[in-house]
């Protein structure tokens, strides 16, 4: 990821993929508000939140997956760069998770009537966030670089699998208010008409690229700090 930032084609001093991210997120923000949406009972206009809540979660999961891949690379090769990228990936994913949680809570307030329900998916997400917060605590409690990288990579892999079980598998086995779980049809089933897809998919790409940009900045920040400390 560091490499992309340094060598890719620049437009007006910014790498091209950063422009893509800016354009796509702005597009999602404006088009999401303007374009026509299907009129559905209960949801009404709140269905526009699909462009923000769901896409932020998708972006978060993609970034967590990338973090998992870098953790595996770190275990295989033991290099410092992949360790830093994996840990910053978790930090950024946590940030996007909080955004997704807040937008989700607003949505829940307007459709289910409360900010938080005892829903299996919501509980799973809360646990998943705690697991990843525990990851950051774990990293903070070790000083020795080699050991910290290896141990936190092991926990990251474990956390990822558990997180997926909590939010993808368990809610499907029990009753859930969430679309796509507990016997409910997913959104794709009845209301993602082609109009909504035009905004939905670009929004996912936009949020993901924005997350990559965050990671890029934080990794560079980390390496500058380390270089300064080394002097």
């Amino acid at each position: 990821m560091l490499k992309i930032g340094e060598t890719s084609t620049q437009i007006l001093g910014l790498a091209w993929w950063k422009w893509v991210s800016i354009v796509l997120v702005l597009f999602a923000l404006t088009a999401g508000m303007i374009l026509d949406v299907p009129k559905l009972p209960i949801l009404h206009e709140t269905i526009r939140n699909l462009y923000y809540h769901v896409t932020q979660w998708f972006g978060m999961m993609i970034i967590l997956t990338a973090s998992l891949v870098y953790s595996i690379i770190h275990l295989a090769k033991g290099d410092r760069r992949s360790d830093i990228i994996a840990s910053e990936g978790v930090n950024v994913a946590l940030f996007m998770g909080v955004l997704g949680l807040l937008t989700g809570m607003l949505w829940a307030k307007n459709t289910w009537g409360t900010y938080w329900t005892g829903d299996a998916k919501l509980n799973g997400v809360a646990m998943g966030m705690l697991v990843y917060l525990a990851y950051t605590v774990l990293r903070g409690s070790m000083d020795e670089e080699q050991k910290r990288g290896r141990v936190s990579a092991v926990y990251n892999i474990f956390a990822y699998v558990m997180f997926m079980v909590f939010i993808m598998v368990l809610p499907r086995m029990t009753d859930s208010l969430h679309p796509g779980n507990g016997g409910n049809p997913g959104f794709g089933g009845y209301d993602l008409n082609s109009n909504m897809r035009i905004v939905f998919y670009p929004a996912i790409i936009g949020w993901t690229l924005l997350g990559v940009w965050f990671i890029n900045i934080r990794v560079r920040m980390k390496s500058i700090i380390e270089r300064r400390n080394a002097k």
Partner: protein
Amino acid sequence: MLLYVVSTVFVCYLSFRSVVSVPVWNALFWIIMLFASLNAVGRSFIQERKGRLLYYYSIASPQAFLLAKMLYNALLMLVITFLAYAIYAWWIGDLVQDHLTFMLALVLGSTGFALILTLMSAIASKTENNMSLMAILSFPVQLPFLITLIKLSKNAVDGLDPSISYNLIIVLVMIIMIVLALSYILFPYLWRD
């Protein structure tokens, strides 16, 4: 360890006197077991001295060592869980109607706790303040398992037909298998030190 369980149950007995309701009875028992497991299994790596670990390292492969630890912890938890249930039922009262399913819940629960905590203990032992980190690391991972377990044992206590609980049993077994597989793959990386 046994003393810990006995005194916790006794404290619960003194504070509740008689059982309030089935959900409370059920949840209380599993919360006691959660903390008992943290105390019993959580120590398994932390207690070992450096020299002994080095000795194990030289005579056994990491996988064999991990499986042995897990087997020992699972058996330990099994014994503690059944004793705790016996004491709990004796003092606070036995409300279980479907004993067979409840026993299955006890077996699955103690094995699951033991396996999850063995790996977490191995991770936590690499850090300085390991006992407090142990709780931070393992509770979020244990909780969904615990919630499913509480549902299963509630069905058993209420004497519902076992066929309702098959789903829950599948989930529990699945989590145990996942934890076992992940630990088996990941432990060698922790062990090399």
